[in-house]
């Protein structure tokens, strides 16, 4: 495998979580090793046990989980070997290793940092603890560390709070914190999952550079095969607490031996091109008139300050956007966080009132209504025909309502069905999205993420809409579920002649799903066109930068370090 000696060996590790219904074996006989100075990626979908494995190394598995068997051998620089699995999780021995010789960074840089302690305090904490530095020395060290992770103006940054930073900067703070004591091993648990692609590319670059400078060993946990292909030296594929396959990245991508690995890779490559369902479609000879015409739409938030609440500036969330959506068509809106794509979706549904421009909605009878100004019954009628599917299937379903109540609610509140008829229609809707109608009396917590998103779709379909705005509808799902969810949406589109406004930050999902794409940057649409054209031959510099930052599942052609960078022209 590699010629260097392993720095960490996991042998037949078992971690279980006792629950009321029995013992869950989250990690079930896992063995692998980390080669010194190299990057090992642990890849798997949610529930595969990859995160628990990583936490077991530092013995910080959440209660009630605990290590029930196996060894974790840590070979130190001085030649001694420790078995981390045998240590007391609250003991001195393991605490001295944590943050000193083995450090960890986490997925969500906002919630993984304390909101009420200054950055310098949190970054310098480990050196005060392990190296016994004074408060002042720790502060100096924190400034150096912030500089080494390329945070601008570290002397000021050290006295700020984490919420004053963007997501990418917070993750840099997190990395600085982990590097504080020059660890031999850095464990990164999905550190870029919550970030935009361009930010992800920067963080991956940064980790790579720091690893080379310091000769660190990196264990990188991810669900993204593209990231694996970009950075891994060795790969460990996990599923349901077991290792399915491990080996050097090139041979694993070129000739996967395990069926599950092949499935993972297959799902990723499937999303590399347009969906078969879409390719089979026949273009109508005369394009129908657009169902939505968005003209010069803007949504401006004022910034007020001082005693008199004077307006001192404004945030242009949506800035003069002009777009069209045709019946039966999917328009993709792609952009990074803060690009205004979600604000645009909210304006279409009139969840927020746009401050300028018009949204012409063409009703079934051919008349048009301006949604930006509509009020009362006209707005309510239009809203019945334009529905929304949200990103987080866990947060967007009321946990105290049964599935039947959730899906039936739009019908009930609009007075369209009740009693036996309501039940029948709910059953039909659930069946259509692939949920067993017999489960309608269950509560959302009984369903998995993918099933919940299906329930959300059923709820959106209840009022026979003509337009569905889907805001990152597949972002919270595993890759294997993502493709199936998109196929379901495409089937429904064919069947019901739905128009989709599909908001996403994920280029591969856009390419698979959308007919046309609009690329948004800072509230403006910088480029529109056919999906394949925009995704393969972008013309705008921003689109080029965005596309080149997407990691591709090909270890032979690593390229994000060669990506285009887009610096917005001064406005």
């Amino acid at each position, binding site marked *: 495998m590699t010629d260097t000696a392993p720095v960490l060996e996991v042998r037949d590790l078992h971690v279980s979580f006792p629950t009321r219904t029995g013992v869950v074996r989250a990690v079930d006989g896992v063995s692998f090793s980390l080669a010194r100075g190299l990057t090992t990626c642990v890849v798997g979908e949610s529930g595969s046990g990859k995160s628990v494995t990583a*936490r077991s190394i*530092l013995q*910080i598995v*959440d209660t009630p989980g605990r290590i029930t068997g196996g060894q974790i051998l840590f070979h130190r620089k001085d030649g001694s070997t420790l078995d981390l699995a045998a240590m007391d999780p*609250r003991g001195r021995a393991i*605490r*001295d*290793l*944590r*943050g*000193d010789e083995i*450090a*960890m960074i*986490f*997925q*969500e840089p906002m*919630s*993984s*940092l*304390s*909101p*009420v*302690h200054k950055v310098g305090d949190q970054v310098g*904490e*480990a050196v005060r*603890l*392990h190296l016994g530095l004074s408060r002042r020395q720790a502060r100096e060290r924190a400034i150096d560390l912030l500089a080494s992770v390329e945070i601008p103006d570290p002397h000021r940054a050290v006295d700020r*709070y984490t*919420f004053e930073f963007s997501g990418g900067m917070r993750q840099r703070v*997190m990395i600085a*914190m982990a590097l504080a004591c020059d660890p031999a091993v850095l464990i990164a648990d999905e550190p870029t999952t919550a970030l935009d692609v361009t930010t992800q590319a920067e963080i991956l670059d940064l980790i790579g550079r720091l690893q080379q400078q310091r000769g660190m060993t990196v264990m990188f946990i991810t669900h993204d095969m593209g990231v694996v292909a970009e950075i891994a030296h060795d790969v460990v594929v996990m599923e349901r607490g077991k290792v399915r396959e491990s080996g050097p990245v090139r041979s694993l991508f070129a000739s996967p031996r395990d069926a599950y690995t092949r499935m993972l890779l297959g799902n990723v490559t499937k999303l590399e091109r347009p969906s078969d369902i879409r390719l089979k479609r026949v273009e109508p000879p005369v394009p129908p008139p657009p169902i939505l015409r968005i003209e010069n739409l803007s949504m401006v938030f004022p910034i007020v*300050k*001082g*005693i008199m609440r004077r307006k001192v500036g404004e945030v242009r969330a949506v800035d003069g956007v002009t777009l069209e959506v045709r019946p039966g068509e999917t328009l993709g809106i792609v952009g990074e966080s803060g690009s205004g794509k979600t604000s645009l979706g909210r304006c279409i549904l009139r969840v927020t009132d746009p401050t300028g421009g018009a949204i012409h909605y063409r009703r079934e009878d051919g008349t048009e209504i301006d949604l930006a100004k509509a009020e009362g019954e006209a707005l309510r009628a239009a809203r019945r025909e334009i529905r929304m599917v949200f990103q987080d299937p866990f947060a967007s379903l009321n946990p105290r309502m049964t599935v039947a109540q959730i899906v039936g609610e739009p019908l009930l509140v609009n007075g369209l069905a009740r009693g036996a008829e309501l039940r029948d229609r709910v059953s039909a809707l659930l069946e259509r999205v692939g949920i067993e109608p017999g489960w309608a009396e269950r509560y959302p917590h009984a369903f998995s993420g993918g099933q919940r998103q299906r329930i959300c779709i059923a709820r959106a379909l209840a009022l026979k809409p003509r337009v569905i705005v889907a805001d990152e509808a597949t972002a919270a799902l595993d890759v294997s579920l993502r493709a199936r969810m998109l196929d379901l949406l495409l089937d429904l589109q064919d069947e019901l002649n739905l128009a989709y406004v599909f908001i996403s930050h994920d280029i591969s999902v856009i390419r698979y799903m959308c007919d046309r794409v609009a690329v948004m940057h800072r509230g403006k649409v910088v480029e529109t066109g056919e999906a394949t054209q925009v995704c393969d031959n972008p013309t705008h510099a921003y689109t080029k930068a965005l596309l080149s930052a997407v990691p591709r599942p090909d270890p032979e052609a690593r390229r994000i370090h060669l990506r285009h960078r887009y610096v917005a022209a001064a406005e």
Partner: protein
Amino acid sequence: MLAYIFRRLVWMVPSLVAVSFLAFFLIQLPPGDYVTTYVATLAASNEIVDQRTAQELRERFGLEQPFIVQYWKWITGILLRGDFGLSFEWQQPVSGLIWERMGLTLLLTSSTLAMTWAIALPIGVLSAVRQYSVVDYFFTFIAFLGLAIPGFLLALVLMYVAVVHFGQDVGGLFSEEYQTAPWSFDKFVDLLAHLWVPVVILAVNGTAGLVRVMRANMLDELHRPYVTTARAKGLSEIRLLIKYPVRLAINPLISTIGWMLPQLISGATIVAVVMSLPIAGPLLLQALLSQDMYLAGAFLLLMCTLTLVGMLLSDILLALVDPRIRYD
């Protein structure tokens, strides 16, 4: 922040005008007036007051004038001269009566608060960290018991035990010999010797509730990712507990300190009546019963002002302890 405080203070003015008007209106709402009550009290002890005397009393107190005139006299007196009017019942200026009791009330309330927090917070933290353990169940049981027992009942039992078994009178805040004596070190010591009984009684109720709130807040914070981060740094459990989750779990409680201010007047009334404590609550109750309108009005107005000030204080405190909160 300063701009925010200034804006809030400006907004307080119309609120106070509205509130004072309402307070004055409310104390006039019950049928009859102080003279009616006075006549009735005298009649109960077989003293007959004829209609003319009653009429004279009414004129003397200005009770015949229209509502708005009475209000105007009252409010201008307060604003211009700090004169809250005359208590009919006590035949003394209202301000003198109030300030005398406010000092003792403040002492009692603040010592109760300090004791409540000192006991409740550590127990709440312990209960959360050892959730569903014997310790947790034990304190949960005690806490619910404390919640369920009315303060006045506890006061009665304590007084009974003290008198019957120890031959000691624990009512009031002073022994008889210090009741009217001027302030001295001995009187202060005597006050402390009496003070602990009502403080314990009042703290039992408050503690029970606060333990549950602190436990719930802690349980929310304990499983936050930043706790795992701190653990991954190698901090010991007790250090990371105090530095991170406890610090965040206390935040919502700090904002409730401001709400305690109106409690200064209305709090602990029943216990105070049972134990004959010379604090504000029983006086307010008596003023309302006898329709001593200027005294009651002054209390109501003070309570409303304290509520408004307390809410502002809460908001400022919260902004100080939680850097995420900005009021600009």
